[in-house]
């Protein structure tokens, strides 16, 4: 396959989804119970899909590595979820949400998918309210909204600082209802280690029972991967410790193209790294930027005094502070998109203005907000975030400004999917953060919850019948076939190989090493030289890993070291693909910033420069075999409903 068929339906953009639904193939309710669907991941995408497909009457088998489906990392999303409800009467509309998302993604998303996302966004809120999600409300009893980075309207729905938790528990509750009804079977502490392809179609998986270590086979008529993103390739990230790319990587190796792997979002407001044993970074919701002002001292002497502990930030007068976002981007100020905010912070710190001991932190200050709104309102809006910050750092943000720094957070890239969320392998789907489609080169705040739930509740359940329609006479998928034998043998072979290395270094050692290369050379700011070096360095780390890794414990028991080893082995390959993709994309767009591609003059001087002529495409990479260069396929992006413009937040 050389051209990718994204299967966009006919008609004007606003009617495409309706057209699609009106003409797609269906499976009648009595046939659905004959069809098995495997879902990997119980987060917002996977959980919502499991619940909805179960309600429809399909047999769903849900796999997740956590001990409970409620623990998927969607739960950690704090800020909110966007929807074009226009409850605030500020001229919001589907088009405007669509426009903001495409623009925020720097015109590297597929516009038809994004439009559908905007159209369905309101339904998500209705759905969640019906489930009993306790969104924040006005005194009149209606839902309230707040504004978020990258938008000029107030369209973000939230439940204090735990929106992701509440939405996930909503999906979890619907899923539980289906588990009770018997349509969803839940496999906790099971990790998918390969997909099984039979006659070119995805027909099942091989999974490891993480408690007993048993390798098991499961057959199904379709396989859905909702396994999240790969931000942990950086080792330190805001992702949960066990978030991994294994499912996505295994399907890549079985023929599902991987799209735009270099699009990894670095979140601007995280708590800075404090020590060498640090295992993860904690995100402070972007909503803080609504009322917080970001600054560093204007004078380098003040910076020094602060680092030495001789000066407190509160002692620096207004005229000696550099509110650099407000200075550089007067129209959006502190609410510029994440990539812009992150790079601006890095720019200041690289210039020597970082305010913590290591020099990698900027201030996020609430003094103005407290003076303007009063402490009570600030507490009501951000109380739990402030508490969390104080617990981690020991500083009280009501009294002294927070310190923040960017950290790896979300990956826009992922498995390539068409309009139906099907990958290049028939019967294999990817939803939520695991796919690439909607956020382009940069995701706006409060959009990931929206996309995951949209895929899970509305898109996949409406599109999967088009494929399953052919399978109503297939009967149960047998797992005692040569294809399953081979896949299982590959998995046990991999595990044996890991134990056989008997090296001297721990899995974490290699992960940390990889993370450092990724952060330094494939992180916030990239250039050709660094990327080429990174590719070589990753290869070396990978070779070392297979020569010198030590996996303790046994295969047939609960063994977290083995789990990590399998995951890190995949990260060591994925990291290289990210660098290859970043090297290929010789433009700056969204989160992908190439130092060679900046505006040289004009009002946007120094800002990232996109190259629409050469790079308005999705880079979908095909796996060609171990040690072979992956093959690039381009899905050209056309924008009919929106004009391609340089982003301008000034």
């Amino acid at each position, binding site marked *: 396959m050389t051209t990718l068929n994204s299967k966009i339906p006919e008609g004007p953009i606003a009617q495409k989804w309706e057209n699609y639904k009106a003409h797609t193939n269906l499976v009648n309710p009595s046939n659905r119970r004959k069809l098995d669907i495997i879902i990997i991941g119980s987060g917002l995408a996977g959980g919502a899909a499991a619940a909805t497909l179960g309600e429809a009457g399909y047999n769903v088998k849900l796999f997740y590595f956590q001990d409970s489906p409620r623990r998927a990392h969607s739960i950690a999303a704090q800020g909110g979820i966007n929807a074009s409800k226009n409850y605030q009467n500020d001229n919001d509309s589907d088009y405007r949400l669509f426009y903001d998302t495409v623009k925020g993604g720097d015109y590297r998303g597929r516009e038809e998918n994004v439009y559908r996302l905007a159209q369905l966004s309101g339904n998500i809120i209705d759905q*969640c309210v019906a489930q009993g999600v306790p969104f924040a*409300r006005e005194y009149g009893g209606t839902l309230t909204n707040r504004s978020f980075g990258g938008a000029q309207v107030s369209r973000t729905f939230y*439940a204090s600082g735990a929106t992701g938790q509440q939405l996930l528990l909503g999906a979890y509750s619907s899923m539980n209802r289906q588990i009770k009804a018997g349509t969803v079977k839940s496999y906790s502490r099971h990790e998918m280690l390969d997909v099984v392809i039979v006659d070119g179609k995805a027909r099942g998986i091989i999974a490891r029972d993480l408690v007993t270590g048993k390798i098991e086979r499961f057959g199904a008529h379709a396989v859905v991967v909702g396994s999240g993103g790969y931000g942990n390739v950086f080792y330190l990230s805001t992702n949960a410790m066990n978030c991994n790319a294994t499912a996505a990587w295994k399907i890549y190796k079985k023929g599902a193209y991987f799209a735009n792997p270099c699009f990894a979002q670095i979140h601007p407001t995280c708590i800075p790294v404090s020590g060498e044993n640090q295992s993860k970074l904690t995100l402070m919701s972007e909503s803080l930027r609504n009322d917080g002002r970001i600054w560093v001292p204007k004078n380098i002497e003040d910076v020094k005094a602060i680092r030495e502990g001789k000066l407190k930030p509160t002692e620096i007068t207004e005229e000696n502070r550099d509110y650099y976002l407000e200075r550089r981007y007067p129209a959006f100020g502190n609410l510029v998109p994440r990539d812009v905010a992150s790079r601006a912070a890095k720019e200041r710190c690289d210039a020597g203005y970082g305010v913590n001991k290591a020099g990698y932190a900027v201030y996020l200050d609430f003094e103005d907000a407290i003076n303007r709104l009063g402490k009570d309102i600030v507490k009501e809006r951000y109380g739990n975030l402030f508490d969390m910050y104080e617990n981690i750092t020991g500083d009280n943000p009501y009294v002294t400004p927070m310190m923040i720094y960017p950290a790896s957070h979300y990956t826009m890239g992922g498995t390539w999917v068409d309009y139906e969320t099907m990958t290049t392998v028939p019967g294999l789907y990817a939803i939520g953060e695991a796919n690439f489609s909607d956020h382009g080169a940069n995701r706006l705040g409060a959009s990931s919850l929206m996309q995951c739930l949209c895929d899970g509740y509305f898109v996949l359940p409406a599109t999967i019948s088009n494929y399953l329609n052919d399978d109503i006479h297939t009967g149960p998928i047998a797992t005692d076939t040569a294809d399953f034998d081979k896949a299982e043998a590959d998995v046990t072979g991999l595990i044996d190989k890991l134990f056989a290395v008997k090296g001297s270094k721990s899995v974490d050692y290699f992960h940390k090493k990889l993370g450092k290369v990724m952060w330094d050379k494939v992180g916030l700011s990239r250039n050709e030289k660094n990327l080429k070096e990174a590719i070589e360095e990753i290869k070396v780390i990978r070779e070392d890993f297979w020569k010198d890794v030590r996996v303790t414990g046994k295969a047939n028991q609960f063994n977290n070291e083995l789990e990590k080893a399998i995951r890190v082995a995949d990260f060591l390959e994925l990291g290289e693909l990210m660098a290859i993709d970043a090297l290929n994309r010789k433009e700056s767009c969204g989160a992908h910033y190439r130092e060679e591609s900046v505006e040289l003059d004009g009002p946007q001087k120094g800002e990232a420069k996109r190259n629409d002529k050469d790079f308005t495409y999705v880079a979908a990479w095909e796996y060609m075999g171990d040690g072979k260069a992956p093959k690039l396929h381009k899905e050209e992006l056309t924008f009919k409903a929106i004009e391609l413009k340089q982003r301008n937040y000034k």
Partner: protein
Amino acid sequence: MDFTLKIWRQEDANAQGSMKEYKVTDIDSDTSFLETLDVLNQQLVEKNEDVISFDNDCREGVCGTCSLYINGEAHGPKKLVTTCQLYMRSFKDGQTIYIEPFRAKSFPIVKDLVVDRSAFDRIQQSGGYTSFDTGGAVDANAILIPKEDAADAFDAAECIGCGACVATCKNSSAMLYVSAKVSQFAYLPQGRVEATERVMNMVNQMDAEGFGNCTNTGACEVECPKGISLENIARLNREFLKATLVPK
């Protein structure tokens, strides 16, 4: 900082377990508790020994995966935080720290400090939902809910399902956990529709799982990392009384 760690080791569910002693040295006070266990595990890898298994994931206090009974308290000595949010500055240099799994008959041990909390999921499956299919919802603003009720529902819904309440309770009672979900729905009009069946099913399942009875010691509320209020248990009792004794 240096610490002596006494940690419960148990090969698997059926094995006999015991407390084993370990030492960690030169730990920065800003290191988190779980990072200290990471450091210890790295040492074990160096010695080619099996690492200590413990559940953890988000490490920011919301997924509810981490557990641990630390020096006689669920999630350690600091109130209103999970183990993953505990930092070594909460301990004294040279201190001996006892680390045990959450213990309850309904939470069988999987390995070392890892326990099986699937009983919690089964309780939710028995009734912790509104029966409503995707796609059939009315406009979100068609259901008006007083701001305070929404906030109270949220406070109950904040439960992360970690099991500290059960681990702490001298009776291994799961009442706080169950009451949080029942309360969340009790505050909301969407939840009232099935209130009767929900509370009966969830309490029945809770009893069937072998959790103990609530004797109102209030320990759960104190040790709950999310500060779920004991008032929710009173509400659960009311809901249950209403469901079982008031004729329809």
